[in-house]
């Protein structure tokens, strides 16, 4: 490709987040989420999930088990889809999707959702109930509606009666950041006019015991960027946004997706590239897509999981691309690491930061690691914001950076 053509294709036309919502351990809906961030509280608590005996803290959403799906959606019953259902009911998100479907047609609204473990908890529990003679799973076990990775998008499509393209992106902890990139391409190409994007991941034994086996789980509430950080705290969340082309009369407080960048580390399955090579590439691409300079970014929502190696690699990459003065924080001290939902949850937190003029502090962190040369916020900063970045990195070396901005 000739150079000038290449540059044009790398720039993207902004999209508006015409509705967005988040449900996690720090609150159901954006008002509760924002209030918790303002109060600098964590939603993490000692793990009492299911029969888990690990010495760890988790970000569990209260009341998921008490919120069964409507009878018409019973085939999708599982904790993950219950959490999705709870999330879709907040902040008028489902109503905004219905208005988009009425405006464009149900087949012109796509569904692009991220999850890492879908409804695997149902399968984990079913394996305890195998028939002692035949080994069969119990009769109530449902593979398609619960276990399969696509069940989340199939559930959302049916719950919202949409009939356009639908897909689940499952790239571990970058999943629901990457859905913004896929949805953006589908809108840009004219395949659809609007997209429900988001991520839902729920507590299960696979991730709790799995991250524990890798010795990546802290026995305390996670402390991103702390000198004594020693691992993640696992959380769960459902976060969604409706993406549309910006209309002619955009409210000054409207939030826009300005840039996306995606890359691969090509280094290791479960450890980041030590110099943050892929993270750097994703951030540079996002800046190029948004036609912004590094100094235009006013706040960074770090991936910031709280493992020694992740925060170290991210700090190197951020320092390399943006220097060490741009304020940033990881909100995982409040929410826990919500894995496949983290990208969408933190996109919503970025949208709230832009609309309400607040950079949320990283909670739990008491002594910053002097080796991490980034400007890490331990106190909220109230200020008008125009451009912010969110990073999401996952197993398999999958990286995604998003840039959001205020319209006005």
């Amino acid at each position: 490709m000739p150079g000038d053509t290449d540059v044009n294709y790398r720039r993207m036309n902004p999209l508006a987040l015409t509705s967005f919502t988040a449900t996690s351990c720090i609150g159901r809906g954006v008002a509760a989420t924002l209030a918790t961030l303002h109060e600098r509280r964590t939603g993490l608590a000692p793990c009492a999930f299911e029969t888990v005996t690990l010495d760890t803290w988790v970000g569990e959403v209260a009341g998921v088990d008490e919120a069964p799906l409507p009878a018409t959606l019973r085939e999708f019953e599982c904790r993950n889809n219950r959490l999705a259902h709870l999330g879709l009911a907040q902040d008028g998100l489902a109503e905004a999707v219905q208005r988009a479907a009425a405006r464009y047609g149900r087949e012109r609204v796509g569904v692009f959702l991220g999850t890492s473990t879908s409804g695997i908890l149902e399968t984990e529990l079913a394996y305890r109930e195998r028939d002692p003679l035949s080994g069969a799973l119990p009769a109530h076990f449902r593979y398609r509606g619960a276990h399969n990775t696509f069940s989340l998008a199939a559930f959302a499509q049916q719950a919202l009666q949409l009939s356009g393209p639908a897909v689940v992106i499952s790239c571990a902890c970058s999943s629901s950041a990457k859905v913004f990139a896929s949805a953006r391409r589908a809108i840009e190409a004219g395949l659809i006019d609007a997209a429900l994007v988001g991520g839902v991941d729920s507590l299960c034994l696979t991730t709790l015991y799995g991250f524990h086996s890798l010795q990546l789980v802290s026995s305390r509430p996670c402390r991103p960027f702390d000198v004594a950080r020693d691992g993640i705290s696992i959380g769960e969340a459902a976060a969604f946004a409706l993406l549309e082309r910006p209309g002619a009369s955009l409210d000054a407080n409207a939030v826009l997706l300005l840039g996306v960048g995606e890359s691969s580390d090509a280094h290791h399955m479960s450890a980041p590239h030590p110099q943050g090579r892929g993270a750097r590439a994703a951030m540079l691409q996002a800046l190029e897509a948004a036609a912004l300079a590094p100094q235009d970014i006013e706040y960074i929502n770090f991936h910031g999981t709280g493992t020694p190696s992740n925060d170290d690699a991210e700090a190197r990459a951020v320092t390399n691309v943006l220097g060490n003065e741009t304020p940033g924080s990881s909100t995982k001290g409040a929410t826990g690491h919500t894995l496949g939902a983290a990208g969408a949850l933190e996109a919503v937190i970025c949208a709230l930061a832009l609309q309400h003029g607040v950079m949320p502090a990283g909670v739990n962190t008491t002594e910053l690691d002097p080796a991490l040369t980034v400007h890490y916020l331990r106190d909220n900063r109230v200020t008008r914001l125009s451009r912010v970045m969110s990073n999401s990195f996952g197993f398999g070396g999958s990286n995604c950076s998003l840039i959001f901005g205020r319209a006005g």
Partner: protein
Amino acid sequence: MAALAAYVEGIGLLGPGIGDWPAGARVLTGQAPWARAPTVLPAPECLPSAERRRTGTVVRLALAVGLEATARAGADPAALAAVFASSGGDGQNCHEICQVLASAERQLSPTRFHNCVHNAAAGYWSIATQATPASSALCAYDASFAAGLLEALLQVAVERTAVLLVAYDVGYPEPLHRHRPIPDAFGVALVLAPAVSAASQASVSATLTAAPADDMADGALEALRRSIPAARSLPLLAHLARRTTGRVVLDYLGGQCLAVELSACP
């Protein structure tokens, strides 16, 4: 709407009784009969030995067809964006994890855990080939091949970049097998480029349609197409093998299918 168009530059194929793309093409053009035989997966020589020991069937399958497609295209795998589409990931690994978690000890192996992510094949691919561009792993149940093709064509059309599409499925052991009875491993890979080149075999252009999906005239191949999500690619592969100009309709979601117009390159 921008045309979702691309040039097919290379094809990789592996499935029951099909060892590579030339063997598959002979079956799909009627030059050779298809005899169902267990899929034979090569060891992933391209991976460092430490990684190679950790790979299961799903990674071996995805790497084999990806490498075949890029070799036939004469493309540098390190330079390609990649889309990995699978209905279920590594079924054996998933079974082992669920068994361990149902036991008293719950001692999960770290390797089993990182291999359970849906993007495991994408991760190993990038490590093996040193590919640093974007890679995605997606799922759309039985529609996973068409969803992957759609995602790959969108990347070609919007990012103006060459993309490797790898679609693959392996089965589950019991007790999950009876709930998701995928009989054997099947993988297909396509190198899709935004501009014509000496390697171009055909141009493809896709649109959504309400028309029904094409089936395979051969009863045994039709059974294969229906039984493995990645094998829903067979009608498209048959056109590519015959080097015909025409239209093929692929299974997608519920009420809609993906229509692909093909034109063989001279």
